[in-house]
């Protein structure tokens, strides 16, 4: 039954290995552990101990009288609060790191991108002239930190949204005041017996999500860029085949870049490389899983070994000396799985410990020392390696598209802008934009929804940007290589060829979904395709969502104006009212809506319908797949095939049909 578990050949191979060895994985557990049918649809209320109440069948209200809609809305809002907390706590830690670096207490770190520091300082209204970068960084870090504890006013980055959007948030009372305040308020309002109006609860869910997208996440992205550099494109490979049989393999897994950045430095340390050689290895090979992988992929070209559902499979190769984890999306099963191999599971965050793992606490004040100790431990483990099985699958990847680079690539240092992209949308070369983001979910075949959706979108001339585990999926299946433009529609292919990009752009980790907000705002500001995000022919898609973070991201996307489609099943399916509120209800308020379609075919169809509807509303030409595609190198293949001296320079007709 392996075929229904994943569409990734590397995963299928490893699942056979697992089966042969009698090892258990999430793929198997998903079959054994059926989802609770009541909880999965949002109909279970376990907020107080008169319950838990199961609002199914004839039961339409709980002991306290809470309706199904109230229960589903409360569950939903709590998911948003959980997700927002995860992203935001990540952002907060980066602010602490930046402050430490500014004070000269961040061992091994530096302010890598001064231009970005200046840009961020400008967003924050922090003076820069005549000040050292450390002084500025201290103020930026402090201001960033304030965003979490702020009680009144508006989160500072919301002013990066279009004026129209800000106005709408203010009028609707959705403007987030402070990250922690919104999360706390959501938890309070969803406590037993507080906010019992589903619509009011869901409004607060939006406000909390905005505090994530335009607060915690956006700060996490910006502060990471300042500290570790703003990504620019680089090449690498993806999938389990990046593990090496003859080198010390270290996998970093989780979400934060702080530790992984230092591990990158440590693995390049000549002394440690020598040490690895002394243990019989040819070198040290670093690879990643989940978003911490995206962070170091975008900045250093460290190859990703895979996405969420690859974490156990990686261990099962037997080739991993250490799997170093920080926070989020780390399966507890890793600890017991690792017992079967020489692999050491090393936890590093005081916030995230796992029974059975080795804990080596990471301290950003002694970052490099911590990282070196971890790498050294991995090297020490190399001689313990047993039989290995590394599946030989990789694909070429180009990653590293920060919004700064997106601007640059469309005109260079002097003329960078979003004009070419907007022009392409206006002309219909690009039908629209789609962000395909989010997780793997063991309940649906790994990567199937993600890859099929992306394949169909680019075939229909929709430019796709990806983050998170969807980005890994794209990379593993070759969608991040520029050659993939051959499978794009003719207009999109032409644009890809003009710029030199793949039709699917890797924008980063899941906190980097904030980059999508920035990009869309810049598209709106550039002009011609709407004055606000909700007018742009664009959709957000999360085909295989799994965690609360995805729900938070989906919600801030909607509140920012994006039509957002999720796969799997709806977590509020039990309540028609909530289903309607987050769809039509939110669309009336904020222009975006949240919908759930288990079948990716529906996601593609609805996305294209929406894009065409938005095109029509803007008065743009109707999308026509046959109109473009004549330019570029591709049509001249016959011409270039000849040696230069045999080419007839004065006739194209001799080589090109039509």
């Amino acid at each position, binding site marked *: 039954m392996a075929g229904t578990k994943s569409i990734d050949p590397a995963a299928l191979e490893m699942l056979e290995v697992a089966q042969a060895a009698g090892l258990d994985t999430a793929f198997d557990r998903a079959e054994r552990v059926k989802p609770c049918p009541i909880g999965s649809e949002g109909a279970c209320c376990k907020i107080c101990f008169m319950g838990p109440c199961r609002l199914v069948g004839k039961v339409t209200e709980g002991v306290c009288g809470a309706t199904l809609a109230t229960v589903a809305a409360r569950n939903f809002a709590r998911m948003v609060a959980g997700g927002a907390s995860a992203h935001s706590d990540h952002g907060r830690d980066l602010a602490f790191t930046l402050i430490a670096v500014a004070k000269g207490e961040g061992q091994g770190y530096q302010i890598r991108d001064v231009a970005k520091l200046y840009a961020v300082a400008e967003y924050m209204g922090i003076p820069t002239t005549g000040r050292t970068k450390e002084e500025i960084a201290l103020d930026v870090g402090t201001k960033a930190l304030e965003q979490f504890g702020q009680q009144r006013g508006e989160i500072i980055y919301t002013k990066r949204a279009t004026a129209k959007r800000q106005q709408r948030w203010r009028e609707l009372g959705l403007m987030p005041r402070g990250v922690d305040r919104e999360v706390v308020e959501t938890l309070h309002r969803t406590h037993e017996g507080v906010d019992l109006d589903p619509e009011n609860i869901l409004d607060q869910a939006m406000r909390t999500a905005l505090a994530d997208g335009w607060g915690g996440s956006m700060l996490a992205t910006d502060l990471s860029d300042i500290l570790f550099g703003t990504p620019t494109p680089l090449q690498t490979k993806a999938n389990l085949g990046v593990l090496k049989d003859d080198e010390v393999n270290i996998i970093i897994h989780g979400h934060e870049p702080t530790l992984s950045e230092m591990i990158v430095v440590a693995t390049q340390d000549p002394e440690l490389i020598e040490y690895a050689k002394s243990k019989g290895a040819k070198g040290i090979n670093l690879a990643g899983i989940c978003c911490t992988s995206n962070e170091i992929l975008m900045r250093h070209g460290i190859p990703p070994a895979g996405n969420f559902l690859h974490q156990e499979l990686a261990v099962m190769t037997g080739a991993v000396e250490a799997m170093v984890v920080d926070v989020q999306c780390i399966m507890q099963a890793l600890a017991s799985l690792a017992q079967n191999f020489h692999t050491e599971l090393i936890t590093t965050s005081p916030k995230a410990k796992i029974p059975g793992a080795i804990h080596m606490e990471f301290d950003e004040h002694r970052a490099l020392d911590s990282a070196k100790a971890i790498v050294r431990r991995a090297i020490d483990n190399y001689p313990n390696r047993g039989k290995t099985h590394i599946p030989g699958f990789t694909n070429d990847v180009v990653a590293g598209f920060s919004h700064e680079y997106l601007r640059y690539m469309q005109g*260079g*240092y002097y*003329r960078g802008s979003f004009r070419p992209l907007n022009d392409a949308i206006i*002309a219909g070369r690009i039908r629209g934009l789609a962000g395909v983001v989010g997780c793997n979910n063991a309940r649906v075949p790994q990567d199937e929804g993600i890859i099929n959706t992306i394949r169909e979108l680019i075939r229909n001339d929709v430019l796709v940007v990806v983050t998170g585990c969807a980005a890994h999926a794209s990379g593993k299946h070759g969608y991040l290589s520029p050659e993939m433009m051959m499978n794009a529609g003719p207009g999109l292919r*032409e644009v890809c060829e*003009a710029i030199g990009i793949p039709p699917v752009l890797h924008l980063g980790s899941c906190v980097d979904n904030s980059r999508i907000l920035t990009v869309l705002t810049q598209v709106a500001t550039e002009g011609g395709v709407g004055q606000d995000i909700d007018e742009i022919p664009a959709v957000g898609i999360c085909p295989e969502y799994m965690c609360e973070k995805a729900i938070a991201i989906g919600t801030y996307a909607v509140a920012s104006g994006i039509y957002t489609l999720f796969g799997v099943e709806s977590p509020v399916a039990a309540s028609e009212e909530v289903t309607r509120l987050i769809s039509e209800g939110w669309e009336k308020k904020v222009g975006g809506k949240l919908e759930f379609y288990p079948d990716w075919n529906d996601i593609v169809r609805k996305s294209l319908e929406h894009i065409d509807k938005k095109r029509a509303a803007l008065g743009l030409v109707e999308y026509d797949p046959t109109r473009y595609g004549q*330019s570029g190198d591709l049509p001249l293949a016959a011409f270039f095939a000849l040696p230069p001296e045999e*080419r007839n320079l004065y006739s194209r007709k001799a080589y090109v049909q039509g």
Partner: protein
Amino acid sequence: MSRYIATRALRGANLIVNEFDALLQKALQELGPDKEIKFTNTAYYLPTILGYTGIEVSNIGGLKPVLEHCRTLLHGLPSNKTWLPYLGETLDAGVATLLAEEGIMGIRFAYGLEPQKMPGLELTGSSAPGPGYLNGPIDDIQLRSWGIQLVDGRMPGFAALIGCAKTNQAAVEIVRQLQQRNILIFLSGNVNGRSVIHQLMEEGVEMGYDTYIVPFGLDTISTVYPMGFATRSALTFGGMKGGQAREILLYNKYRVFAFALALGEVDDLKYATAAGAITYGFPVLADTVIPEIRPTGITQYEHVISMPWDDIEGETDAEKAARFVQRAIEVRGVKIKITEVPIPVPYGSAFEGERVRKEDMRIEFGGKYSRAFEYLRMVDLDEVEDHKIELIGPDFSDVPVGGAMDLGIVVEVAGRKMQEDFEPVLERQIHYFINGASGIQHIGQRDIAWIRINKAAVDKGFNLKHFGEILYARLHSDFGAIVDKVQVKIITDPDVHAEWLAKARVAYDYRNKRLSEMTDESVEEFYSCTLCQSFAPDHVCVISPERLGLCGAYNWLDCKASHQINPTGPNQPIAKGRAIDEWRGVFENVNAFVQQASHGSVQSVTMYSIMETPMTSCGCFECIMMILPLCNGFMIVSREDPSMTPAGMTFSTLAGMAGGGLQTPGVMGHGKYFIVSRKFIRADGGLKRIVWMSSFLKETMAEELKEAAIRAGDPDLIDKIADERVATTEEEVLAYLEQVGHPALAMEPLM
């Protein structure tokens, strides 16, 4: 981009930057870092470098930071597999290419190798050091004198032709097509040693500023000169400063309609240079097979178009050239209105500057040996039969080759909106209209008109009635809003000639009188002129009967007529309203208008003063006036005068202070004829305040100046005014003034 183009451009860029590096090291060693670098008569240093980087290169050593900057803009070539994006990188490399090319040109100037030699070449109008030279960079004077035509759309833009056309005939036809559309033609580059410049020379095409064809140099590197021209138009007319690269480039994208025609095989350096040109928003059209780049954005329409010559529809090179140029114009988005003039020779403003030499002449009218006049009058609608063109008298077939003949051109127009005041406005156009025909030369006006027709035009069938056809077509197309019917009499019969000449002279006298009576007080309305806002967005001219536009091309009557023709156009009536200060020329409504039309950047305009809130300038001024504090007066330098002025700056440098819509007391651009107006800086003391003036003005306006001096009560005043022949520093001016007893010294202190 395409990966192919990116690869070639990046390769070309890396090579040329290395070449620049090597040449710079050599020059540093041989000439030393302090050796001066200077392009022909420009205030903008090496203008492309200035525009992109703000670096003011004035010597060899000054190129070092430019080279360093070039290096930061270079990138490696895209790989064959899993390549990284290349568009932004290629455009940056294109910029590096332009900077390196201009740096190389600067060094070549220092070595005395630019402008390049080209034996046998003779340009009509150029910045070249003499015959036998290519033009090299266009100087600031020529840039400014083309300014008004560039802004009012008469000259839609420029085409840079790089390389060598498939055949000589193709080269000529492409150039003719561009000339007919009044597009400036810039030539550079070669293919295997042969350049489009050779082709045009071999075909006897007249080149030079006067025919809108500028041959810069035989190599690709010379293509940087057009880019410098484009940069300077943003600096000159757009009021931008060096280093405002993005603004300068966008200004060019949106306002300067230029494109490149790559003729013949495109090599690495041409691709690299083209990448630089694309940053200005200038698209490239090739007559060979190259990959196309059609998605838009950096340029307004397609970036690169390939139109291989053999594939272009058409039997002849002429037909192919027409389609080729038409496509180029579409790609650039240039809006060009061509008036079809049914005459047997090519027609367009580019031919206005053509001369007819004595030895090429078939016949002349006027001049030394005969008398010619032209007279336009309005008559009642029913007295005009539209498109009636009469030849009264014999044609010139009996006049020997090279001979002369009397001629009268009488144009009668009628129209419901026509006014008597517009007669001289329309009559003045006869000069431009007739001059547009290739092979015809027109000089002068009224009864001092002088027309020559060359042999080639007559061979093609040009006859006297064609003058009528030209005037009929152009008056309808340009003045259709006020002219409904036009008839033309071409008079060679001696009796009729004498009769109409007498009538015309009565009319000339009447108009002179009317014009001299027309004062600022005698009218209720002034006119605005915001024609140049397409180039200088904050500048507004206020034009009154006694103060013509600073470009010299628009007087009050022109504006009035223009307003009739296009009621929502750039010339709007401004009811003067209450005079805040009549003597100084400050009017309530004028101020209100200027505030609004300058988008708030100018609050008040004093019409008759240079010292208090003077009128701003675009960049097309004929003259610049500037205070000389030591001399208690002002100097006036004319656009034609390249010499050093007592202000310590040449015209070009001064122009940077006066232009761009900036209001600077003590500095002002103005039209030549304002000097002889009664209102000329009346508030500051009038003509008597002028202590220095370019001799060019003294000579070309001798009579008018004399009259104005008499009116000012000092008949010898003009001789008391210093010029560049006696003084080029303020101290020298002062000494001269004291020597001749100039009245300014006795006037109340200016400051």
